[in-house]
């Protein structure tokens, strides 16, 4: 579907700061070293605002929402 958005992490830029997991725990959890593990699949409608906040709040702009 063209309206589907997916969370994508730039793995090299990501520093394991962890804000994404704080803001969006439904879709992001941290591994044993503080780096994000994303739940696969598109972002549900009701979580899109939080996903956009996670994208904006990431200190290194490593997480993004993409149209697949």
């Amino acid at each position, binding site marked *: 579907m063209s309206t589907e958005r997916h969370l994508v992490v730039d793995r090299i830029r990501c*520093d394991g*700061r*962890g*804000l994404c997991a*704080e803001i969006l725990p439904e879709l992001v959890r941290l591994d044993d070293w503080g780096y994000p593990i994303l739940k696969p699949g598109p972002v549900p409608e009701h979580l899109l605002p939080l996903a956009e906040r996670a994208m904006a709040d990431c*200190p*290194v*702009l490593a997480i993004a929402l993409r149209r697949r």
Partner: protein
Amino acid sequence: MSLVLLSAVVILGILSTQRVQGSFWPRFLTTGLHRNLALMTVVFLVLHVVTAVVDPYTNLGWAAALIPFSSYYRTFWLGLGVISFELLLAIVVTSLLRGFLGHRTWRVIHWLTYAAWPVGVVHGLGTGTDTFSAWMLAITGACIAGVGIALVWKVASGSSDPLADARATFRREAR
């Protein structure tokens, strides 16, 4: 007031880089506060500039507020304030447009904070009418101490990126 706010913003910014958090204090709270206080600071600074310009006693005019070192009243100290304010504007505007500018550009301009804050402090000391009153000195002292301590702590902690050393080693060896 602006000085206190600005100092708080700088301290929160430094804490953001050091990944500070507690059980009841998530990291996004530090960044969120930093951002909100920064915007509040801008509002207060605009008020500060406006009241200074329209003050009949100083007769500054708008030019003085926008062009550094163009006022007749305390030319040097006021000019510093204009510089500090304009630096802060650049920092805030680039932060709001961070998504479009990219991380690297945003970061370089954000470093200007380390110039904007001290220049603002000196401006306050130089133009204040009650600079040497006890409470004014106390407040200014506390602000400087606060930022100073945060900075020292940041420098002493070293890089907060757990990969920094390993990455540097690999880059050295993969040349």
